[in-house]
Structure formats: C-alpha cells, structure tokens
C-alpha cells in the first residue's frame, strides 16, 4: 500500500469515527482527474454506475473542467457501497466520434473524498465509430438525424437511442406503449416539431414527443385484402399534422405480399392503411419499402415493382421506362428508397442490384453503373439528401454520393450492410445492420 493510500485509509478511518468533526472530513465525492485529454475536445461525456446498476450519464464542457484542473466529481448515494465505475469520453463539434476514452473506478461507501484518475486513450477521430459509449445499440439499426447533436437510432426490441451532441441516452419506451413482445422498429423519422415517429412490425406507430413522452398510435386496417398475416411497416414520413407509412403483408408461408399506404388521422390519433390496389387509380399491390414526401401532400412510395406518387390526394402509379426515350416500354424495378422533390426532375430512387432511378426529362429511367462506369451490383437500401442535388446512397457494402448523372463511390474504411443513412450539411450518418453507427464528413 502506498504512503498516499495509507494516509487516505487513515484519514477515512479517522473520519469514520466520531472523534473528528465530519466537517473536517469533507464530502464523500469521487474526484476524477483526467489525463491526456485531447486539446481538441470541447465536450466530455461520463457514464458511471455502481456495481451492476444501469449506467448514469452526464456531460460537461471543457470549460467546466478548467476551474478544477481537469477534474470533476461524482457524489455517490449516501450509505451506498460498491465499486463506482466511470467511463469518460471526449468529443468535439457535437459529433459522437470520441477523441479520447478512459475508464477508472473506486470503491465507495466510506467517507470523505476519493481520488481516481482516468488516463484517456487517444482515439483516431476518423473513421468515426460512435458505438463506444456504454449504452444499448440496437441490432437492425435505422437512424435519422437532423443535426450532429440530434441523432436518433432505433431497431430490434424497441430499442431507441439518442445522441444529443454530448451523450448517448437510451430512450426507454414504457411497456404500455410498446406492448409485449417489443417490436422491431424498421422505420424512423423526425419532424420539425421535434417528434420522432417509429414504425415496424407492430400494428401501431410510436411517437416520441420533444419532451420525451411516448405515445402509441394504433394502425387501423382500412381497405385491404382479406388476410390475417400481419403487416410490416418499413417506411414513415411525418411533418406537421400529416404522417404517412408504407408497408407490406408479411406472410410466413408466402413471404411479403401486397403494398399498403397509411395516413395519419390527427383527430383520432391513429393511422388508417389501405392496400394500394384499393387506392383510386392504382391497380397494383406490391410490397412497399420506401417513402418520402416533398410536402405533406406530395409523397412518393416505392417498392418491389411499384412506384406510387400522390399529389393533393391524387394517386398515380409511376413506371420505369427501360428505353428511356420514347417512354413506352415499362419495366419493373425492385426499389427500396426514394428521395422526393416537388420538381420531378429531382426525384431519385434506388433499389436492389445497384439500380438507381432518375427522371430524364421525359420519363423515369434506371441505371446500374456508377460514375466510373462500374456496375454497382450491390443492393442499395437507403437514400438521404444533403441537398436536392447531393444525395448519399447506401447499401450492402456500398456507399455512393450522387451529385451528377451517376453516383460516385465512397470508399469506406470497412464493409457493412449499411441500411440507413441521414445526410447533413457537413457529412452523413450511416447505420449498419449490426447496430454500428458511423459518421463521415463531406467536402462541400
């Protein structure tokens, strides 16, 4: 035992007795000293717990550390003993890409202050792997981000994770909302009011308000074919009082059958879904996976062999014309995602086997070769617009940036089944099927 430790134990023993005034023993606080803190760090995240408790988390800025010489304190609950484990991360620019990471621990339960030092590892800022914090990262993660400090991730078992610019927090949705077993969320989208909308393999949508409260919004079946197979919802869009979902019937015996479009009834706080062939002017019913809207009344829905658009309540079945010129030969396309725009020339779609669809001024046409004239080949699964003319496409082992006539490949630091993407002005977030979250900056 070192002299310092011996002194500490002596002091603790003295403080534990009644011979010396407790005021002289100081508060029972674990004082954590940070070593090797990156000079670039602007924010510190700490996750701490006693023994097997769930992690508590909190943040502080580097300015808050300066007054105490790179130290901060954690006050254990009175009378609680055990090992207080502390994990520390440093970040910059509100991005969930750790610059530093360190751990330390101390036995609490005595009296007086305790000291612990967290020696921080230097982590490379890029590539950004955001999954270092000790929270639950969902498998089959889908994400949506409006800014570097507002990233939402959802997936299996109704796990929802939020990055607020300094901390990852698991958003716990009550069982009364999720039901049991908990659904897998397959679609996530935020609106400008701060609500987060989640849909998946359950007959309801979950809306998390800006204040964190979660509401269960039932999905009622409207005009649909007779079947007891459950519906699977993989796309959602919401803005203002309008919200849309798309899905398909998940038949265990036959697979995915039929396409469904649901609209939100704010007066009844519920969705009503209609099978696409029951919609006026639409004769087909094929599985739908993707949805995007240019406005609450201008939406696009894409799926296996089906493209639908709706403007001001008028549905229209769209077609990919394989000749691209005369627009007379229609072909099917297995599409998974769409970028909507009020200008049809800017509407883009992607799908299986590296297919991307665009409007060529005459009709929708498709291609599978990238800007380097290489066949993409991989399934493209998600699309997000940095601007109307700067899109990010992701898929199985595939990352592309689509700014001109053909997508340009982005060479990732690792391969993955990227299954959702959210582009921001300075970069984009992607989620892998395994639940890993990445961020990549983009040049203008």
């Amino acid at each position: 035992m070192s002299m310092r430790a011996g002194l500490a134990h002596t002091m603790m023993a003295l403080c534990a007795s009644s011979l010396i005034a407790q005021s002289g023993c100081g508060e029972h606080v674990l004082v954590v000293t940070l070593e090797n803190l990156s000079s670039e760090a602007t924010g510190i995240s700490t996750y701490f717990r006693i023994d097997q408790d769930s992690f508590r988390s909190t943040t502080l800025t580097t300015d808050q550390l300066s007054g105490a010489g790179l130290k901060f304190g954690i006050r254990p609950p009175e009378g609680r003993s055990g090992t207080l484990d502390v994990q520390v991360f440093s970040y910059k620019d509100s991005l969930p890409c750790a610059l530093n990471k360190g751990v330390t621990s101390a036995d609490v339960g005595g009296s007086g202050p305790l000291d612990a030092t967290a020696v921080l590892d230097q982590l490379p800022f890029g590539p950004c792997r955001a999954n270092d914090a000790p929270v639950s990262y969902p498998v089959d993660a889908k994400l949506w981000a409006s800014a570097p400090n507002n990233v939402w991730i959802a997936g299996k078992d109704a796990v929802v994770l939020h990055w607020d610019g300094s901390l990852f927090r698991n958003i716990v949705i009550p069982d009364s909302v999720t039901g049991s077993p908990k659904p897998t969320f397959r679609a996530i989208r935020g609106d400008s009011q701060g609500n987060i909308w989640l849909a998946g393999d359950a007959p309801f949508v979950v809306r998390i308000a800006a204040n964190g409260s979660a509401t269960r919004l039932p999905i009622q079946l409207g005009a649909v074919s007779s079947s007891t197979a459950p519906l699977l919802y993989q796309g959602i869009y919401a803005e203002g009082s309008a919200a849309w979902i798309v899905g398909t019937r998940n038949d265990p015996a036959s697979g995915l059958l039929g396409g469904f479009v649901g609209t939100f009834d704010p007066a009844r706080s519920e969705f009503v879904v209609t099978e696409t062939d029951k919609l006026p002017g639409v004769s087909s019913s094929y599985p739908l996976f993707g949805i995007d809207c240019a406005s609450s009344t201008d939406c696009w829905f894409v799926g296996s062999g089906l493209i639908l658009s709706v403007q001001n309540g008028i549905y229209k079945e769209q077609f990919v014309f394989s000749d691209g010129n005369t627009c007379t030969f229609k072909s099917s396309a297995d599409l998974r995602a769409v970028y909507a725009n009020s200008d049809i020339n800017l509407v883009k779609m992607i799908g299986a086997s590296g297919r991307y669809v665009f409007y060529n001024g005459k009709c929708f046409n498709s291609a599978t070769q990238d800007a380097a004239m290489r066949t993409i080949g991989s399934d493209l699964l998600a699309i997000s617009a940095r601007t109307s003319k700067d899109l990010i496409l992701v898929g199985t082992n595939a990352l592309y940036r689509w700014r001109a006539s053909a997508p340009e490949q982005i060479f990732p630091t690792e391969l993955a089944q990227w299954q959702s993407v959210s582009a921001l002005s300075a970069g984009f977030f992607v989620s892998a099927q395994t639940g890993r979250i990445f961020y990549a900056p983009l040049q203008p």
Partner: protein
Amino acid sequence: MNSRTNHHSQHVSIRGILYSSILLILLSAIQPAHADDFDALFRKGMTLYQKKDYEGAVDSFSAAYKIHQFPRVMLNIAQVYRKMGNAQLALDFYQQYMKAEPNPPAKIRADVEQYIQQTKAMLEAPSLLAEDERRKEPAPMGFDKQTGQLMPWYVEAQNAQSARKKKLLIGIISGSVAAAAIIGVGVGVGLYYRNKLPEGLTIFTY
C-alpha cells in the same frame, strides 16, 4: 527494614565515637584567656553566622568556647552545625548543651528540644549511600516515633512536595492540553486541506 535499622545503628555508633572524640579534643584544647577575647570571638561568630559564613562562625564560636565554657556557646555551635546541615554534630552539641545547662529558659528549652527532634529525624533519613535500599522501601512517614505526631520538617517537606507535584501535574495537564490542541489543529488542518474539494469542481450526483 531490619537491614536499614542495623545499618543506621552502625552509623550512629561510629558517629558517636567520632563526635565524642571531637568534643574531647575541643574540651582538652580549652585554655584560660581574657574576657575581651571571648567577647570579640563570640561577636565575630555571631556576625559570621548572620553572614551565613557558617564555617567561620564555628571557628569563632569554638575559639570563644576555649576561653569561656559557656553553654550558650555550645548552643550556638549546635545552631551553626544545624544550619550547615550537619545533623549529627548539631545533635551532639544540642545534647551537650542540655547537659551543661539543665535549666535553660523555657523558650530556649523548647526550641532546643525541637531542634534535637529535627536533627534526630534528619539522621534517621536515609543516606545517599543507602539510596538503593531506600528505593526498595516505603517512604518514611515522618511521624514521631514517640509522640505519633507528624514532624514539622516532614509536613514542610510534604507541603513542598505537594506543591511540586501540583505544579508538575498542572504542567503535565497544560502540556497535554496544548499538545492535544496542536495535534488536533494539525490533524484538522491536514484533513481540511486533504479533504478540501478543488475550487470550482463540477460534481454530479449519482
């Protein structure tokens, strides 16, 4: 106790022979002299006594005694020896005085008897040579064996010892309190600075 008594008796007998011899020598040296010389020597002895030159005083009184064998000269010699701390010689001269002056004034008789008791008590006190034995035995109680009364010298010694003990106790207590206060303040200051949380420390509550 027996060893002490035997030892003491042996000392007394030796001293008795020694001082008897001294007295015989003094008496044998007595020669006729003038009265003026006696007065001068006696006054000189008194002056030296008052100046606490006890050895000079003994010499002067002894010289005066050679001129005139007045008992009060013996008494003065006894007094000087007592002042010098020579209890045995003082006792011998007191006793010689009482034999030479069987009817002294009452006040003088009382004083002499008291002095005799004191010098006897002093002689009964352990000598330095017997220090080792003395330390093994109970401290003398200071009671007169004849009367059972506490002897004045013992009372004074006890009072002085009590005073010393009291001062010592006060000193110890004061020192202890001061030391405790210093240690307490030191420990308190040490604890305070050791346990003082850094200024501006941000603390999170679990």
